[in-house]
């Protein structure tokens, strides 16, 4: 059927995985339509501007960074599959990251994009664990996440076979959890492996302009390949008939049809589209279990962070005690631990960002934020902004509150509520459901998942997830037919 409202594939969500899937399909001549409810693309890694200033939503750093010429890595595979020239992403590597525990910052590890640095740190600070660490790193280094199944094994249990020091164990888990874990306190070993490789064995990087150049490249590729993208056009319902999606109902009530549907909005969120009830923002909090979410503050400075002596660290993962507790907090914000990201401190080849930027991220409780009436919500944000600044400040070279205020030109803050509002992901979940669906199946023959809940993590991971979904469920399926 060649009617204007029938497509080979409809993709729900114009985030990184949806765009990547769309590029693959459009490149091979499929009629694709990506439907995105929001006005901006990028999903959990989108962007916005306030007062003429540009901000990124999600991107601290892109994981899976490897230097040019490195073969056989997720980044390389991604560039090939999407026919993207490495230079188009213009990735700039991190300078260094630190994991620091203890109120006085007593224990910690440094790591860079050179895995030897982390090894050296462990050899010096945990000399009895270095052999175990090397064994662990070696076994994880030969991992292929595309082939991996959710092993169901506890990452903690496996790691403890190699590393006997709980402090080192938590130091290693801390960044991996903050940058990709949907599970409280422990991780699936397969997920742990993906994160370990993408951060410790590969590296972190960021384009000078943040997420926008990456999104621009994806949008361009998709457009040039002939893909169609409808913004401000969410999917309200998926109509099932005979074990298949028979129609896609959009927010405005109109219907489009497709041979295949790929959904990037999350497993539970997708199942909700199959039910009769019309779309509702902010799903029942109980459904699908507790979700890990965050608050993040962004502070724009008129000075470069190095002027405060903050010029060395790209990312600081902090925790003010010896054991690291990664879980949904009872309070609105868990001040005990968090992530400080200083986007200025990537190696931009001699260029400086036009302004100083410092981001502080902490674990947060969605329900506590979602229930607040608007004026209380704003007041709570202001209060917690101060508290998070103070908490994070313990782990950077000290700067007086007066000096920091004088240097601050703007602040912004988002909460779990913001995340749900703009992405539709339930309970402000950034890393999706703790239960991943590796094969992307939903029970319906022509509906598949991609993105976070398919189990691939990080920006590179989510794009590979979209690529794999397009390849496996549409392109190869047709070849088999």
């Amino acid at each position, binding site marked *: 059927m060649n009617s*204007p409202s029938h497509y080979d594939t409809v993709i729900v969500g114009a985030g990184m995985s949806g765009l990547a899937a769309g590029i693959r399909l459009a490149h091979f001549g499929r009629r694709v339509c990506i439907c995105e409810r929001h006005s901006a693309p990028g999903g959990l890694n989108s*962007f916005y*501007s306030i007062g*003429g200033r540009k901000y990124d939503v999600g991107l601290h750093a892109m994981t899976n960074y490897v230097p040019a010429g490195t073969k056989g890595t997720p980044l390389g595979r991604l560039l090939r599959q999407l026919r993207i020239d490495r230079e188009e992403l213009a990735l700039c590597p991190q300078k260094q990251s630190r994991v620091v525990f203890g109120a006085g910052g007593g224990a910690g590890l440094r790591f860079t994009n050179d895995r030897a640095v982390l090894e050296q740190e462990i050899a010096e600070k945990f000399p009895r664990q270095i052999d175990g660490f090397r064994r662990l790193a070696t076994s994880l280094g030969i991992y292929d996440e595309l082939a991996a199944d959710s092993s169901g094994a506890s990452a903690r249990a496996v790691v403890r076979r190699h590393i006997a020091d709980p402090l080192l164990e938590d130091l290693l888990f801390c960044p991996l959890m903050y940058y990709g874990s949907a599970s409280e306190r422990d991780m699936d070993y397969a997920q742990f492996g993906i994160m370990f490789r993408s951060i410790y064995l590969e590296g972190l990087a960021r384009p000078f302009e943040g997420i*926008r150049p990456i999104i*621009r490249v994806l*949008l361009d590729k998709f*457009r040039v390949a002939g893909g169609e993208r409808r*913004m401000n056009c969410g999917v309200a319902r998926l109509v099932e008939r005979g074990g298949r999606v028979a129609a896609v109902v959009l927010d405005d009530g109109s219907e489009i049809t497709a041979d295949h549907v790929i959904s990037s909005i999350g497993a539970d969120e997708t199942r909700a589209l199959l039910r009769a009830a019309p779309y509702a923002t902010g799903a029942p909090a109980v459904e699908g279990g507790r979700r890990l979410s965050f608050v993040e503050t962004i502070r724009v400075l008129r000075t470069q962070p190095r002027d405060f002596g903050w010029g060395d660290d790209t990312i600081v993962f902090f925790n003010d005690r010896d054991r690291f507790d990664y879980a949904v907090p009872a309070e609105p914000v868990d001040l005990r631990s968090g992530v400080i990201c200083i986007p200025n401190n990537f190696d931009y080849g001699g260029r400086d960002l036009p302004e100083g930027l410092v981001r502080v991220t902490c674990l947060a409780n969605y329900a506590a934020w979602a229930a607040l009436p608007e004026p209380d919500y704003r007041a709570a944000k202001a209060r917690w902004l101060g508290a998070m600044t103070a908490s994070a400040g313990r782990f950077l070279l000290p700067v007086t509150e007066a000096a920091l205020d004088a240097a601050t030109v703007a602040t912004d803050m988002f909460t779990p509520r913001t995340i749900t509002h703009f992405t539709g992901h339930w309970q402000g979940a950034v890393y999706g459901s703790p239960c991943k669906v590796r094969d992307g199946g939903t029970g319906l023959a022509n509906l598949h998942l991609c993105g976070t809940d398919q189990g691939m993590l990080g920006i590179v991971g989510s794009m590979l997830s979209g690529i794999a979904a397009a390849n496996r469920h549409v392109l190869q399926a047709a070849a088999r037919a």
Partner: protein
Amino acid sequence: MATQNSLAHGRCVADSLLLRRMKPPRIVLTGIGLTSPNGNTLSEYRQNLLNGVSGIELIEVRYMGAQPAGVCHFDPLKYQKKKDVRIGTRAGSISIFCAREALADCGLDWDRVDKTRVGIYLGITEHGNVETENEIYNLSLFKHDTRFWTHHHNPRTVANNPAGEVSLNLGITGPAYTLGAACAAGNLGIIHAAQMLQLGEVDLALAGGVSESVGTFGIFAAFKSQGALASHPDPTKASRPFDKKRNGIVVSEGGCIYTMERRDDALARGARIYGEVGGYCVNSDATDYVLPNAVRQAECIRKAIAHAGLTPAEIDIVNTHATATPQGDIQECLAIGEVFAGCADVNINNTKSFIGHCMGAAGALELAGNLPSFDDLIVHPTINVDELDPQCALSGLVLNQPRTAKRVDAILNNSFGMLGINSALIIIRHRT
């Protein structure tokens, strides 16, 4: 798809068109991107206009030796890759530079703009001469064997090339084309964009004019054959409108592109507004291929002023077209003298004395040089008038030195072109 929905939709469009014709939306300029022989930013360009600095230099023109010309010195690689510069045209590079600068200036979050609702409307005098002449020259090196004619030639020479290159560079999927209106083209780009915005065809327009004409010897040679090509031992003094010793045109390249929006949209997003489109008129002489007609020019100016709902006394700055041809300057002065008879306070200037004749870009660039006057009340002069030609002695002429005006609320921008096309554009100071 003749469903109930589309019929109703069609009726709605017709109703809204009717409404708009009754009271068309007001249109404003919200961003400026330019490259001229006198600067690549508005502030640099304006500073040189106020300081009496000419941007004309001597260049080597094939078969003609050294000629005074206006050349732009912007960095094409700021917004283009080397490959794109090589495959595309100079006019394309100028257009891309100006469009990107205008977008950076206007404060819009470009990543959030719906690219299907952006239009590109660029005035050009000519396009294709540069590429064709150069390709024929290259071919002569291969004994005119047409197997060596580049496959890039067609996309390089279609008249919409400058607009098309902008669309490619920015991923704009709305309408993108050029308007051919000889030396009036710069105004036509702005006028046409205003109309498209009023019709609701687009929500954002990139509009103005561009020219790469210094790249072709043919235009120089043709002006010379007409007796209309300027010469002077000092290139900075070669372009001398209204001066007794003027002897013709200085050919220049350049570009100026504005972001234009409906006033309500601009106000809603808190945009900075350079000015508002007050009124305009476009007409034709129907007299001669080359020589201008003062009667039709006067008519064009009067109609523009009426279209803006103003009287001649309410025009504060008149930026003349005057290209420094012996005849052309006189005709325009006749027209202006007649329309503005008795208007003691009107200030009359000219930009070509500084930057030469930027062809398709002229109208747009010359307007840009005057827009800052809304804020600082200073009117830039016309330079190189050592001895004013009595036949061009308009009382409002601002000669050689800038002048402070009592009031700058309305600017009239004249651009006249070959085959008798006339355009007059009025920009008024925006008041909230």
